[in-house]
């Protein structure tokens, strides 16, 4: 009983605790995801800021380039060369005629080494057939300036799509054109003049990178404005171009946020590596503390409740045990005077019988005293047996006895009470051999059964007691034609303190332990007490194990 109870208590405590912990962790995960999302948004916003810084730098350069491309299309070659020498971001100027052919530079004998280098670098651009500006017809990009074919131009929309062009009211007037050469992506910037000429420049890639970098923040010396992480700018090959922030991420670290750089540097990307301390652990410290306190308080409450109920329960059990022991002791104390009363009443009856005054009123009164004291004695016996059973101290005291003699004397004891209710008891004894059994057990069980007959069988009823040996056991059957026991309750009557429906038990007193004790006694005696199915009335079947005659 006790381990089961402890298991139940553990269940009562652990189940809600587990539930609480699970809910807590779910909450924590949710919170973590929410904070993470917000955190990522925050990082992205910071990257967006930087992206804007770069876009501004590019916009500045674009204005500068647009101004540069305002030069007259027929500008002197020497001046164009001077622009390439003087302008920080210009590697080489170029001018295309309205038909797309080169006006400057030209691959002639007087071309400088720089101009030759320009054609070498940009060869793939012209070979791709790209059209810068809205030249009307397919053009032959011819670096010699005449219409001879140097590069066959494939005209097509897909080649135009390559160019990252800026639109102005639907008509392309200027744009950036990226291409890959040498150490990375290079850019041409071009503008179409009203004359149809395209004036452009090859952007000095390194100078442009240096310019973009110089506008980005550096790692601050000041701890208070320090970037709490690391932002890295990566090029198309994923190499770091520039980075700032004091946090040094491992090479295996994944960035918390990534953002492609705006056009025309769209093959670059910005990455944010947050410092470990910065990254939220899902909860703020205070939320985590609150949750922990909640869980601990919940646990404490549950434990307290469990302990409280356990103590209440054990106290009640102790009280009950004390009561049983009290009743037991009282029963013991009652038994001795009762036995004396019964003994002397029976002696007196015997003396009356011997004196031949059997029909007298006093004799009848004496019979009542005897039978009532016998009933009280049975009750006390039952109580004491129950207490013994509770303590596990029951054990039969076998003696050599003839069962029928015991049964007959027990029925004899009930005779006056049964006669008073005009219940007729028939005895069919077939167990006349002496066997080893505890006659007190048999007497007490049979007494309880007959007592039930007396209580429940209506006046003028009929009962029958049958005994027989069945192998190595004695079978005693008690039939009656009383109201019977519904089949569903045939086991329930053996539970202690159980009495059947009010209708049946109305006005009938009893302790409610008789059948329970009887069954326990039968089982202790290696037998069984059960109810047999009958058409009407009740049939109790008692089996007791008997040893061979001693």
């Amino acid at each position, binding site marked *: 009983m006790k381990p089961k109870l402890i298991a139940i208590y553990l269940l009562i405590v652990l189940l809600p605790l587990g539930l609480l912990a699970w809910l807590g962790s779910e909450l924590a995960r949710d919170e973590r995801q929410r904070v993470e999302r917000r955190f990522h948004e925050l990082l992205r916003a910071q990257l967006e800021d930087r992206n804007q810084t770069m876009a501004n730098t590019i916009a500045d350069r674009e204005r500068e380039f647009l101004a540069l491309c305002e030069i007259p299309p027929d500008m002197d070659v020497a001046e164009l060369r001077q622009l390439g020498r003087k302008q920080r971001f210009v590697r080489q100027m170029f001018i295309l005629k309205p038909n797309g052919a080169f006006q400057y530079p030209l691959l002639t004998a007087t071309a400088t080494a720089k101009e030759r280098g320009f054609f070498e670098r940009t060869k793939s651009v012209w070979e791709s057939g790209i059209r810068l500006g809205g030249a009307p017809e397919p053009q032959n990009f011819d670096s010699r300036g005449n219409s001879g074919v140097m590069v066959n131009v494939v005209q097509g929309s897909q080649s135009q799509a390559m160019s990252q062009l800026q639109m102005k009211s639907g008509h392309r007037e200027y744009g950036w054109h990226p291409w890959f050469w040498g150490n990375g992506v290079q850019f041409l910037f071009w503008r179409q003049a009203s004359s149809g000429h395209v004036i452009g420049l090859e952007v000095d890639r390194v100078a442009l990178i240096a*310019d973009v970098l110089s506008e980005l923040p550096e790692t601050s010396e000041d701890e208070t404005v320090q970037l709490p992480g690391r932002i890295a700018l990566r090029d198309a090959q994923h190499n770091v171009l*520039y980075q700032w922030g004091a946090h040094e991420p491992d090479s295996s670290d994944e960035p918390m946020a990534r953002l492609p750089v705006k056009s025309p540097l769209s093959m670059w990307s910005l990455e944010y590596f947050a410092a470990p301390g910065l990254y939220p652990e899902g909860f703020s410290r205070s939320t985590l503390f609150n949750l922990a306190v909640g869980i601990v308080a919940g646990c404490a409450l549950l434990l307290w409740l469990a302990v409280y109920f356990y103590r209440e329960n054990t106290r009640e059990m102790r009280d009950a045990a004390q009561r049983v022991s009290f009743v037991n002791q009282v029963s013991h104390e009652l038994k001795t005077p009762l036995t004396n009363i019964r003994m002397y009443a029976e002696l007196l009856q015997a003396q009356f019988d011997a004196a031949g005054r059997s029909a007298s009123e006093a004799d009848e009164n004496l019979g009542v005293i005897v039978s009532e004291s016998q009933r009280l004695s049975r009750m006390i016996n039952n109580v004491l047996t129950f207490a013994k059973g509770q303590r596990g101290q029951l054990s039969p005291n076998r003696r050599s006895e003839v069962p029928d003699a015991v049964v007959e004397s027990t029925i004899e004891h009930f005779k006056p009470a049964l006669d008073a209710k005009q219940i007729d008891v028939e005895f069919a004894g077939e167990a006349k051999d002496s066997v080893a059994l505890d006659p007190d057990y048999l007497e007490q069980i049979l007494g309880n059964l007959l007592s039930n007959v007396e209580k429940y069988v209506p006046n003028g009823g009929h009962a029958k007691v049958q005994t027989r040996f069945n192998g190595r056991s004695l079978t005693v059957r008690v039939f009656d034609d009383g109201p019977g026991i519904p089949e569903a309750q045939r086991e329930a009557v053996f539970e202690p303190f159980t009495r059947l429906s009010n209708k049946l038990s109305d006005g009938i007193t009893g302790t409610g332990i008789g059948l329970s004790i009887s069954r326990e006694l039968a089982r202790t005696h290696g037998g069984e007490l059960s109810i047999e199915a009958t058409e009407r009335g009740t049939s109790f079947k008692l089996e007791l194990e008997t040893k061979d005659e001693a």
Partner: protein
Amino acid sequence: MKSMIRFFLAAFVLGTFSTNANQVKLNVQLAKPVLESDTKQTTFVKIGLTGFELANDQERAPVNVSIVFDKSGSMGGNKIVQARRAAKMAIDRLNANDIVSVVLYDSTVKILVPATKVSDKESIFAQIDRIAASGSTALFAGMSKGADEVRKFINKDRLNRIFLISDGQANVGPKTPQELGELGLSLAKEGISVTTIGLGAGYNEDLMAQLALKSDGRHSFVEDATQLAQIFNEDFGEMLSVVAQEVEVVVDCKPGIRPVRLLGREGDISGQKVVTAMNQIYSKQEQYFLLEVEVPAAEKDSKLDVATVSLAYLNMGTKNRDRLSSSVAARFTNSKAVVNKSLNKDVMISCVTQIALENNQRATALRDQGRTKEAEALLQGNVYFLFDNAKKLDSEFLRSYGGFNQINADNLGNDKWAIERKKMRYQQSRVQQGSQSLRGVPVQKKAPSQSSSVKVKIKK
């Protein structure tokens, strides 16, 4: 004979241009003022620019300098101590008219001292003393930021400079010598020169040399950190002696004359016109470049104008833009003796130097490809060429350069090639920039050479 002398004199007078004390001296000379007649030939024109003398320190142009420090992990220990000392020594030479900034880089960039007037040296020194070494090397980013600091106060009347001290490779951002060279070139367009000082055996000398040469700055190699302050100080002092900036030189070759190539400086050659630029001219130092020209066949005793050189520069003393020009003409004779007699030794020495330099650079490239034997042969040839000409032209410089080439040749197989290569690059950059002496260029200890013992074995 008389007429010959007259022509000679005329060529001499035309070839030299006398200047007043506060102007840059432009000196245009032909290697052979008298050429062999009736044959098409090439010769060299030397264009030399010499800065005037500064009367005293007060006259020098104010500077706007950014000192860019590599503070990556490898700079730890004595290197960073010496670098701090060098920077402080240099800044100590500046005054309240000057502007300085200090930029640090490892894997990221920090601006230690934003561009500021040098009025409170102590606080700048205190900042510099806090520099500690750690991290990797974002050289490109450091340079970009240093340039940006210079740009804050950029002014053509100032000497806009970056000093870069690094002992490492660039490993964050653009990192090839070519890219850093391009950066140098774009900075030069803004009038910013970069002086690079490579420290120890670990830095990328090609990258540091390219960055300096393309921006017209100096490149130095400091093997031992204790020499850093001295070398830095020398470079810094040289910078303070700049007398002219934004120097543009245009060489107009006369009809019939074809410019072939430039030696000692890059420039644009287009048709008859050669355009080149320098960032600065230093006081009392000659900077020169050579133009190889093809001269058509001409009759004897005829005279041919070869080229006119126009020079424009910003005079840092007067803040004016000065313009000068000078022409050179050649005379023809059928006498080889006269031709040889006319040889201009100064120009010839420069030619020999530049040719030897090209060979020396090729030897480095060969050695890089593992073709050590070929490199050694090339350098040995160089040594004979230089010694031979040193004797002919009676040039102490060529002799010493020959000595350097011999040492280079002996050290190609040295197991400390990384160091030797840095010395070679340093020496090359000095020669290329027209240094008149190789004093200060570290001399390789002539190894008790395994390579020579190898040679002996081969001979056997």
